[in-house]
């Protein structure tokens, strides 16, 4: 599933991601907010999920 959060500021990308991952085991997240990379890493640690950075604005997030 793809989730387009381009143009959104924190904490919106992470809030949308948390909602989306309830219904999908893998999310392709697009976000250009400067806080997203740092927050994805903290979110993954806090929630036990995992993520992979594809490029500066694209991330693959997996539910564990």
């Amino acid at each position, binding site marked *: 599933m793809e989730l387009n959060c381009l143009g959104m*500021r924190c*904490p919106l990308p992470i809030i949308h991601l948390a909602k989306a991952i309830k219904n999908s085991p893998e999310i392709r997240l697009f976000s250009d907010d*400067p*806080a997203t990379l740092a*927050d994805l890493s903290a*979110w993954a640690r*806090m929630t036990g999920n995992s993520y992979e950075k594809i490029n500066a604005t694209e991330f693959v997030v997996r539910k564990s």
Partner: protein
Amino acid sequence: MGSITGNFQNESPLHPAAAEFLNDAFARGWADPSKIHQDSRKTALLLNEAKELISGHLRIRMDQLTFLADPSLGYHLGISGMINSVTKLYYGATDRSEVFAIANSNDAQVLPSDLNGYINYPSARINDLLAWQSINGETGIIARPPLDFSGKVFADCTVDPGLNPLPTNWSSALWDSRSWQGPAGLGVFALADPSSWRNPMPHNDNSISTTSFSVPLAIASAVALDHFLKDFERDQISLQARNAKIRNFLLTEIGDVDIAGSLHQTVPHLLSFSILYTDAQLLVNELDSSGFSVDSGSACSSANMEPSHVLAAMGILTHGNIRMTLRAEQTEATVDKFLQELKYLVERVRA
């Protein structure tokens, strides 16, 4: 003057003892302590006492101490003054932006932080320099001494009123009078051995700083430091208990909160935490309208829209961040009211 109760922001009020001193100090004239008149000698004597008091508390020698009118100048003096053509500068990813600015124009390497805010110091050559931060001003994390670092060490103690001992291998060090509720506009700079230092500023003689500092501010700063440390000794156990209580509330009553640094590795009066799925700007504004002022390191609450580099370097959540400064004057009831308000707000925002 209004009460500061309910204010959890970082800006500390001037210590009452220093305020009392300054009240009549500015009304008096202050002679130039470097002249030979009687009044000048009196001023020099008072200034000497202030130096003695401050150097005693900061555990340095009196002859190592220099007052600075601008504390941030001390970064340039303490770092650039220790750098020669073969020096590599190492600095922590959680260091202050003043250090980053100097690193930008030098051969420098940033050292990553772990999740606890600790930096692993490399082994180095004797000419290398480490910018070591004694206590982090955002998280309150107390650094471990860089004892294995074999180069020179600049100690950034600008938020440390002498609580974390200077590492034995320090070369230059900087304090800011504000960290002990002294007046703003006064820095304390020290060199362990002036022969290993080269003045990076335009200069004519051997003096470390050519800018003059305010004598009454220096004396008021000594008065403030003396009182601050006594107050701290009296209050630190109750502050730590309050800090522990807030941490416990955040984890059990609010949940999904990322706290920077554990209780036992941080100073008791500083606390930084991030609340998952919340907007810091909204929290700060709503708390403010309920009478509670806090700081934040989140992007949305900063002027440049960038998240705190300290939180990002540690891997702590950067959104929904709140920074609190605890003071003995804040009552238990104020803290309880703040926590209930925060809980209510978070429930509303997350719903």
